[in-house]
């Protein structure tokens, strides 16, 4: 791209906020009632995090990987690509994250859930709550129609935020490899939606900052409850 420094983020805004929100609305109509299934899965993941058994540590990453794959196909490829040619690259990134989650967590068992560092887990619960309830609530308060709200497990932003929160619920610090795509999404899509005029997109960079601060913070005490091996 010649004279790339003369381009601003607004140079890449291909559609209006109205078109984007209509896309979310029509997508929600199409996938209904998967929003309920995904929300139930999100709540189940939060409950399973504290389980004494070992299988949730492999099942949770698999559930997350399934959601990332679903969003890659159903949202990015089938829907978003109709108004944004960059969506095909987003889909590739989401598939890569799904494979990383499945490989790292489910196949290799490198994500162990249970009682971990208190600070990290508190941040994780806050972020997961934000993904499950905070995102749609903020969007509704910002003036979106209820059919234009974004839900964990079916739309990208809430899924990314929820994944970051769940990764912080692991006993150990989450591997950087699993954080790269979600953090990049928070930065890139947060800035893009802000440029588009959707102020509720602020949740993305705020989440990324909280995750980064938690990940980089010095080790702290663990939660008193024992964890399953």
């Amino acid at each position, binding site marked *: 791209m*010649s*004279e790339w420094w*003369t381009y601003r983020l*607004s*140079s890449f*805004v*291909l*559609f*209006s906020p*109205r*078109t984007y929100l*209509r*896309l979310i609305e*029509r997508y929600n109509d199409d996938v209904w009632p998967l929003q309920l299934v995904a929300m139930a899965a999100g709540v189940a993941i939060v409950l399973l995090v504290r389980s004494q058994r070992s299988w949730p540590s492999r099942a949770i990453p698999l559930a997350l990987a399934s959601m990332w794959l679903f969003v890659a196909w159903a949202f990015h490829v089938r*829907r978003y690509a*109709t*108004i*944004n*040619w960059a969506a095909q690259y987003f889909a590739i990134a989401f598939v890569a994250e799904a494979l990383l989650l499945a490989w790292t967590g489910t196949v290799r068992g490198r994500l162990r859930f249970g009682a971990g560092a208190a600070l990290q887990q508190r941040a994780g619960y806050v972020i997961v709550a934000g993904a499950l309830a905070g995102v749609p609530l903020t969007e509704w308060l910002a003036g979106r129609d209820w059919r234009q709200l974004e839900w964990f497990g079916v739309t990208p932003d809430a899924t990314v935020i929820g994944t970051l929160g769940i990764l912080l619920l692991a006993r150990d610090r989450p591997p950087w490899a699993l954080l790269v795509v979600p953090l990049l999404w928070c930065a890139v899509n947060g800035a893009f939606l802000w440029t588009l005029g959707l102020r509720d997109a602020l949740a993305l960079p705020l989440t990324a900052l909280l995750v980064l601060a938690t990940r980089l913070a010095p080790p702290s005490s663990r939660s008193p409850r024992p964890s399953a091996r």
Partner: protein
Amino acid sequence: MLPVVGLGSWITFNVGDDRVAQDACADVMRAFFDAGGRLIDSSPMYGSSQQAIGYGLRKLGMPQALFAADKVWIASGARGPAQIEASRTHWRVPRFDLLQVHNLLSWQDHLPTLFAMKAEGRLRYVGITTSEGRRHGDVEAIMRKEPLDFVQVTYNAVDRDVEARILPLARDRGIAVIVNRPFRQGGLIAATRRAPLPAFATDVGCTNWAGLLLKFIAAHPAVTCAIPATTQSTHARENMAAARGDLPDEAMRQRIATLVAKL
């Protein structure tokens, strides 16, 4: 002759496969054609805008007045013809009137393709585009070197760089000029909302700022057509009104530019 106001499709027509929104685009096109409009401009870079235009044209019965202007926008010169054919299919037209190399991307590879299409009668005119003041040196060099029919640049009451060299050169060489971003992607319209329309606007038949801003552009002797984009048929009608009546003289153009610069 092309009317001095055309219809752009950047952002406004990129509505995906949303039939409700496609119908709204068709309404804009209907208002545009009813008011005497001809040139519609798009690009494969504009998401689904080409499909929305094709849907609208079919819904309106393929208006005979249409002057179809599109672009080629792909790094690979070898893949240019396939992209052009895909664009033509989206538009549902037998051929394009004008094809332009979008933002000069791989222009050395695409221009020979476009000139060959023109020689074979599969295209009427060939052009290049740039926007927001980028690569004006290259644009000027290509205008001097290649037998272009059209050049598309950004020009409005604030962004006036092209007045210095490109517009005079276009006039000298008989190259038609399409003007993009006439309202700075709506920024100038938003800025003028706070300002009263100057009294002299009525001297050239303008009753709103949009018309005055378009007449500022249209009055430049090198300009062929400005291509504002809109999502509303009322705005399309307002824009087309600027294609009729008197145009500002140079003194009035300076007053318009001075006023807008202060906003």
